[in-house]
């Protein structure tokens, strides 16, 4: 059973997500809810869930977006044992929101238009420590890492470039392929796809690539 906490400032939305998750047969247990930054931190500290489904724009706190502040102030839980993992869920698909929460440590980013079963799958994936990329996030990664223009890393672990395989995976996700379909298309296992996606997430969080930092600095996110 995956324990989750729902953080969103709209009660109606929390109720909706709860109902959709309950309707599916995924083993998900909503152990807490919160409506603002302070409440979210308190609830997460108290319940220590496996996954926090976190809205990006939250009232309260001192910095914006509020979702990032929750991530930053819960930083010690990200590496705790067992760790608390965060999945960002937002109505906004603006690039600055995406990068803000991902760089603060979220394991994935999905928009609120996601279906109930897809959300349940995303939660399950994050709970296992994998990354969740929406097509839009994949598109942003390709853009920011210059992969759309054909730049690829020559060394396996280069932080500022995607490897050829990572680029292929990202392109397929951007085209709307599920992980399973990506695996099938590239003749690799789903586990390998997950490995590639996690590697990309790590680069997204750690890279100092010029476009990323310039872009973030423009919006004073770093």
């Amino acid at each position, binding site marked *: 059973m995956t324990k989750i906490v729902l953080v969103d400032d709209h009660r109606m939305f929390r109720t909706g997500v709860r109902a959709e998750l309950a309707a599916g047969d995924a083993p998900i247990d909503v152990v807490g809810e919160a409506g603002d930054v302070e409440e979210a931190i308190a609830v997460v500290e108290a319940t220590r869930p496996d996954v926090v489904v976190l809205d990006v724009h939250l009232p309260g706190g001192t910095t914006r977006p509020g979702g990032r502040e929750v991530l930053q102030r819960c930083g010690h839980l990200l590496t705790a044992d067992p760790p608390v993992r965060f999945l960002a869920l937002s109505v906004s698909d603006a690039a600055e929101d995406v990068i803000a929460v991902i760089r603060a440590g979220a394991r994935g980013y999905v928009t609120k238009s996601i279906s109930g079963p897809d959300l349940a799958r995303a939660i399950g994936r994050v709970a296992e420590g994998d990354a969740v990329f929406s097509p839009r996030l994949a598109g942003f990664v*390709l853009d920011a890492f210059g992969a759309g223009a054909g730049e690829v890393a020559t060394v396996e672990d280069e932080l500022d470039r995607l490897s050829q395989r990572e680029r292929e995976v990202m392109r397929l996700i951007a085209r709307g392929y599920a992980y399973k379909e990506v695996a099938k298309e590239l*003749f690799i296992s789903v586990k390998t796809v997950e490995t590639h996606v996690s590697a990309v997430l790590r680069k997204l969080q750690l890279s100092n690539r010029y476009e990323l930092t310039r872009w973030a600095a423009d919006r004073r996110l770093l």
Partner: protein
Amino acid sequence: MLGGVASGLAGHLGLSVRAMRIAFVLTSFMGGAGLLLYVWLWAFVPSDRGVPSPGIPARPPDGPYPSGRAAGLPGAQVPGRTALRARREGRRSMAADVMFGVGLLCLGLYLLAARAGWSVNPGLVIPLAVVGLGVVVAFSQLDEVERARWVERASVGTQAAVLRLAGGVVLVVVGVLLIVVQGSADLGQLGRTLLASVAVLGGAGLVLAPWGVRLWRDLDAERAARVREAERADIAAHLHDSVLQTLTLIQRRSTDAAEVARLARAQERDLRSWLYGAPPSNVATLSAAVAEAAADAEDLYGAVVEVVTVGDRQLDERGGALVAALREALANAARHAGGTISLYVEAGPDGVEAFVRDRGPGFDIAAVPTDRSGLRESVIARMERHGGSARVVSAPGEGTEVKLFLPDAKPDAKSENKSENKSENKSENKSGTRQATEPDAGPRTEPDVDADAEVA
């Protein structure tokens, strides 16, 4: 002539400017009525020009000496006016011009008064003249902006205006001092008087300072409030035009689920681009055209299109052809599949790639080739005409993906693609060969890869 009153009035009444001027001069002799009327009109009739007339600073002779004019002293007026008339069409008149005119005017006044047998005390006239000049200099800047905005602080905005204000104040102070100390050349008294004036001015300044500051703050606050109000009105107008209208429409058509979904989706897209989107640019780019195509597909067919674009470029004729092909592919996907359609467009270094993927039932291309003749004509043929290529990948239960590729224009691009497409045409089912050439990097999770079919 001076303030443009005569010409303005002439234009208004449909008479000649010369006639108006003669009338003004004549009536000026009748106890100065014309002159008073002139000044009054000048002060209160709004100018139809944004730029003040270069002749306007000529007003000074009128202002401080209404009584002299009222006495009807044409000899005194004419020299001053003549001096200014010469510069009427010229640049901004300098302080020297004004002073010259005023000097001549004063001289004429003085001579005439002396001839009339009035005993004029030069000790009184000169200080008065100085005070008048000060007032004139300080107030002349008001013409630079609008007379209607006398109290607006914008009138002291420029450096020149500040300089003039200060100069005017100094002149007025000096004139007042001259009047006060007239007759006595006692320097000590002058010093005391100066001190007293400064003390009075300083005291008055101190007393009035809080009021002035408050006035200033009120003005500031009022302006900020106006800006906020304008912003709020902007947002309200946008919400009214978009969201409220859509909500009204949705209520009216609440029985038609598809229509409601379509309206909601269109509104969401609109609001989203308003909130998060980049400001609209006039430059036609590929990504903008793609977004528009997706929006139209959503509006027309009630589909949901998830658009992801990577890179961008100017929209040229060939790009337009690609977008047209995309539109057709989107229409096909919306009609035959429904649900969410994924649209991915990548503008890379070699060309533009586009993918339209749906989650519909899919179809066996070999079994029903004629069903998609629209796709064949408007997508595949169109892409080939522009040196690109198009492929359709589908299998029952797998959804359909249309892949478009438009290489950047190169001399040999066209022939290359043609031959490539021909070869693809020959092998109806290409996935078998592809499978053979690509290394299997991991265990396959789905056994039915062979069902993939491709046509070109």
